[in-house]
């Protein structure tokens, strides 16, 4: 873009892209998949008009043991910034440009399972896109598990400037967090997503939805009564709430465990630091008294700042993991909260309905 017009405000996704991502994500579910988004940036609104999937890891790996599977998942998650993928990406974009597709990279997409996408890989991918390719890029997250429940879950994220600055320095110590004023709440910036159809698509949708009237005014067979597929689905009225909550609680507990480990690490570091500092103080007082004796004996004074060579302060562990984990826990908690709101409403409705019919 020749002119830069303020920060990105919203994301507009074409219906085609929604379907492409949904198909790609569900074909590999529950494995994580990634792909490229193409489109244009128009006055702060990012228009995503096309996409293509990144080749997933070797299909043979899926038959391998668990360890192998894990590796495959990792390579897929890291695909957007993988060297091996650059060729594929460039070639595909060259080809699409020939067909008049808006072949500008505007970001990438990833599939997720109940919102578990917040990890180092995600952040590194987006950092890679925002720092090396184009600052105005987004990450679209399609939640396969939640979409299967009836409501499409498609969210757009960007890294905040504060996080970009911290990531650029490459270290996440308490000091740098304070410096950039970074808390777990401002790692990611969510942008509103809207979906848009072309005129032709609107025509097609209208046509599919209202098939030509049959000759007979009233249907005579049950098969002709089945609703058209584009009819609003009623999956969100489903009453099986336990599996979803159970899965969510599992994920939440896992995250808390990670949080606990991180916390222990941090505390261990603090204790270590205190111990070292106590030793340094002891050493310094000793050196001081020694110097005092030497001064009394008219001897040469020993240098007092030698402690930096003798002692080494322990390295503070990176706080990135715990930041991301906190954000992840917050996300799970919100998810549970949102879900229970719907679930309670449904349960009260069912209760009232059944009571009456009794």
């Amino acid at each position, binding site marked *: 873009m020749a002119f830069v017009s303020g920060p990105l405000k919203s994301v507009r996704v074409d219906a085609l892209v929604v379907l492409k991502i949904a198909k790609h994500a569900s074909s590999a579910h529950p494995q994580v998949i990634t792909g490229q988004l193409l489109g244009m940036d128009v006055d702060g609104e990012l228009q995503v008009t096309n996409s293509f999937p990144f080749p*997933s890891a070797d299909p043979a790996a899926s038959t391998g043991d668990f360890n192998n599977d894990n590796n495959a998942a990792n390579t897929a998650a890291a695909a957007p910034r993988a060297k091996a993928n650059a060729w594929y990406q460039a070639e595909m974009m060259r080809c699409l440009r020939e067909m008049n597709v808006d072949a500008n990279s505007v970001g990438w997409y990833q599939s997720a399972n109940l919102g578990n996408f917040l990890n180092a890989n995600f952040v590194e991918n987006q950092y890679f896109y925002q720092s090396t390719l184009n600052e105005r890029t987004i990450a679209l997250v399609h939640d396969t598990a939640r*979409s299967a429940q009836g409501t*499409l879950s498609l969210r757009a994220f960007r890294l905040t400037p504060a996080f970009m600055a911290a990531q650029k320095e490459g270290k996440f110590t308490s000091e740098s967090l304070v410096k950039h004023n970074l808390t777990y709440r401002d790692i990611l910036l969510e942008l509103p*997503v809207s979906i*848009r159809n072309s005129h032709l698509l*609107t025509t097609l949708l209208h046509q599919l939805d209202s098939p030509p009237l049959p000759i007979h005014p009233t249907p005579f067979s049950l098969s002709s009564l089945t609703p058209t597929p584009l009819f609003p689905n009623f999956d969100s009225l489903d009453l099986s709430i336990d599996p979803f909550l159970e899965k969510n609680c599992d994920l939440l507990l896992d995250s808390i465990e990670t949080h606990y480990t991180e916390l222990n690490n941090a505390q261990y570091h*603090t204790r270590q630091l205190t111990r070292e500092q106590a030793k340094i103080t002891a050493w310094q007082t000793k050196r001081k008294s020694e110097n005092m004796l030497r001064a009394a004996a008219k001897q040469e004074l020993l240098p007092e700042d030698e402690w930096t060579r003798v002692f080494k302060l322990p390295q503070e562990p990176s706080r990135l993991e715990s*930041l991301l984990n906190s954000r992840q826990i917050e996300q799970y908690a919100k998810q549970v909260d949102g879900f229970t709101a719907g679930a*309670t409403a449904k349960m009260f409705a069912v209760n009232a309905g059944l009571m009456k019919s009794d």
Partner: protein
Amino acid sequence: MTDQDSYIHLARPLPVVNVPPVHATTGPLSVLIHAQALFSILDHSLRRNADQDRVIGTLLGVRSEDGSEVEIRNCFAVGHNESQEQVEVDMDYHKTMLGLHLKANPKEVLVGWYATSPELNTFSALIQNFYASNGEGTFPHPAVHLTMSTVPGADIAIRTYISSAVGVNQDRIADSCLFVPVPYEIRYNDADRSGLELVAGAKNNEERTVSVMTDIHALERAIEDVLGMLDRVGHYVSRVVHGETPGSTAIGKFLMNTLALAPKVAASDVERMFNTHIQDVLLISYLANTIRTQIDLSNRLASLTATATTTAAPVVPAVAAPATVTAGGK
């Protein structure tokens, strides 16, 4: 659309021996089209060059084991030039693109091609013969040709064909073919459904846009829809009862089946189940919120200690003895 055409498919015997096997079997075939492929074709049609009447592309998908069913899942555009006398299809482009697609979707194979005009002419036959050919084409399976008219202001008509050889001699066979219409059905995946629903929601909208809904909005809409449908059914039934409209056995049966699905449970059982479940749900919601607060607290404490140590430590490292802060997580 599908309902307008009725089909009777007769398999024509294949030409006799001396004909090279350019054309595969012409046995009955049913075609399933995924919505994504249709969307893609429309997109391509919108992006055609101004002087082009129609655009073509390659269809990808899967074939059932016995080859009697073809599922069109995906497609990509291929450039071509058409003039009065000749047609040029960018074969290299087609090959490169096919290779790239197969890398990302190893399960999909070449199944045919599409054009965005309902017309079938000599060029169609030539292209069809390429896609059905041995080697690079779909041989020994038939290649599916899909036409989709994209004239503004008119209905979008979709047709699917397979081809069989026709012609008096070798040369004629190479540049002509007989297009046999085959029935098709538009297929919607479970995975697509939530997306399609949202996309379809924008169709009555002047701006053709719709924003992604939250769960609770979706629930609200679903409940409103159900209430609307109940109203309609109630209205219909009362009209039938009053003899204003003739009844339909099918609808009657359907309603009866549906009503029979209502569970018979004692009031006390319902009450008990409801109470246990609602308690579970509320407890989890409460716990989730508590965890959220705790995490927030823990992070605030951590950053507080960080500020304390960073301000104190560099100045007098020897004296700074930070109290071991227990940033309680759980």
